[in-house]
């Protein structure tokens, strides 16, 4: 379906579209977002520069940048006005323009209610506080093993040896992947997410590489769901096996999509928050000591600040379904509206000294799980349980770890750390 083109002038001279802008550091980019929050809270920009995709092919005329916390919340909560439906609008919820002819199998991430509600409900029972508590023992066991493995290891990359390990294993556990397949599943998920990185795809064609990983996740997912039809337990594979819409079970493609969604949503996010928080605790030894002093009493609130400060998901996009006014601007039906969670997490109207990593902040009404509404991060409880388990181990077992300079991920989507050299003395 063609996207309506509304030619209109760009409302500021601030560039948040070029590849060059997004190659800059988070802090540098934040200067621009800070200016926008103050002077142009809703602003129209050219589409994100995509060297690999011609503007004539993606057909996007531009996007509205929503950068204030209050407006990010408004857009997020009003899904009738700001749709995620990728089929209807011919575009995904990604900031990065995509080729409209290559529409991936939809997941509830790119649906609106009522369809969204039905699909999300299939998995949501696996993410309730009670369900998270049932998984807690296993998460803690895995976290302990991961950290134990690096005690006294000397110089290592904290990202590959620690941060990256737990999230995909937890996804595997949620799904119900049998122990002997967990590593294969986890590796495929990690590789899928990192498929653009030549270090990870080994210089091969990134699309082929990604498809190989999709095949692994699909096969394991389908086998498991098939098995669960006759051997149900309380994992997500069982929920997928038992789901029915109008008397029909989920298709193989639906199951594959679910595996991919979990592998993407549940992977980079927790991994990045772990790495960022290790860096911040190193930069603020007084706060590290404060947290260690009363871990059980202070970790819950600290985790909220970990997430706010790391802000691993920088933004998502919506499509306006009607003409409306926001931030003094006239938004037209069909316009792409991008909500910048990372900017909301630095909104000086909400957070005192927003750039400051401050574990004593309370409350921390951050936007790390989105701006609220029906798409609020389903995995929020699982993420927090993992962070708690990891940092309990890190603070007690690696107290003398020395942290080097992070190598940052270059991405307009994920605020990430690619490598983090650390030294763990004996």
């Amino acid at each position, binding site marked *: 379906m063609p996207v309506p083109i509304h030619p209109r002038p760009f409302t500021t001279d601030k560039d948040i579209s070029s590849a060059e802008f997004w190659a800059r550091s988070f802090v540098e980019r934040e200067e621009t977002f800070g200016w926008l929050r103050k002077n142009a809270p809703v602003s129209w920009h050219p589409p994100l520069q995509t060297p690999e995709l011609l503007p004539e092919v993606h057909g996007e005329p531009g996007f509205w940048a929503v950068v204030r916390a209050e407006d990010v919340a408004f857009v997020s*909560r009003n899904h009738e006005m700001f749709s995620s439906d990728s089929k209807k609008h011919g575009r995904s919820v990604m900031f990065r323009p995509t080729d409209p002819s290559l529409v991936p199998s939809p997941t509830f991430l790119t649906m609106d209610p009522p369809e969204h*509600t039905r699909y*999300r*409900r299939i998995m*949501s*029972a696996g*993410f*309730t*506080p*009670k*369900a998270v508590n049932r998984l807690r023992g296993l998460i803690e066991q895995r976290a302990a093993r991961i950290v134990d493995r690096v005690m006294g290891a000397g110089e290592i990359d904290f990202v590959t040896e620690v941060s990256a390990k737990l999230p995909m294993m937890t996804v595997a556990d949620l799904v119900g992947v049998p122990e002997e397949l967990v590593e294969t599943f986890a590796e495929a998920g990690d590789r899928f997410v990192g498929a653009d990185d030549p270090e990870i795809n080994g210089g091969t064609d990134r699309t082929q590489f990604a498809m190989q990983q999709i095949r692994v996740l699909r096969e394991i997912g389908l086998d498991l769901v098939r098995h669960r039809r006759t051997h149900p337990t*309380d994992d997500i594979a069982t929920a997928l096996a038992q789901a029915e819409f109008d008397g029909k079970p989920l298709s193989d493609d639906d199951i594959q999509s679910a595996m991919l969604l979990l592998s993407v949503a549940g992977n980079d996010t927790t991994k990045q928050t772990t790495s960022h928080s290790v860096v911040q605790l190193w930069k603020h030894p007084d706060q590290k000591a404060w947290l260690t002093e009363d871990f059980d009493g202070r970790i819950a609130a600290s985790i909220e600040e970990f997430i706010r400060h790391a802000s691993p998901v920088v933004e998502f996009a919506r499509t306006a379904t009607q003409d409306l006014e926001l931030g003094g601007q006239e938004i037209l039906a069909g316009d792409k509206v991008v909500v910048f969670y990372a900017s909301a997490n630095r909104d000086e109207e909400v957070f005192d000294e927003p750039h400051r990593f401050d574990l004593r902040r309370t*409350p921390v009404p951050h936007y790390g*799980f*989105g701006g*609220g*509404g*029906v798409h*609020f991060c*389903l995995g*929020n*409880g699982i993420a927090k349980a993992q962070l708690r388990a990891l940092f309990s181990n890190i603070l007690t077992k690696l107290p003398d770890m020395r942290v080097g300079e992070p190598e940052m991920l270059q991405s307009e989507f994920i605020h990430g750390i690619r490598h983090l050299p650390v030294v763990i003395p004996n």
Partner: protein
Amino acid sequence: MKIKVDRGRCTGIGICESVAPDYFEVGDDGGLVLLREHIDDPQRAEVEDAVRACPALALSIVED
């Protein structure tokens, strides 16, 4: 004072349960169970926090 749940908005996320487990519990089917409707004075602040924390804006406090 008592708690009101907008069932149309509630999707069983469970932040309320993490904040005020005496009042809110998300069942194994993913639906919210309101354990207690009326708020005890000493727990008023905790319940208010839970109400404020709901990402779906499904909770409110009303006069009896």
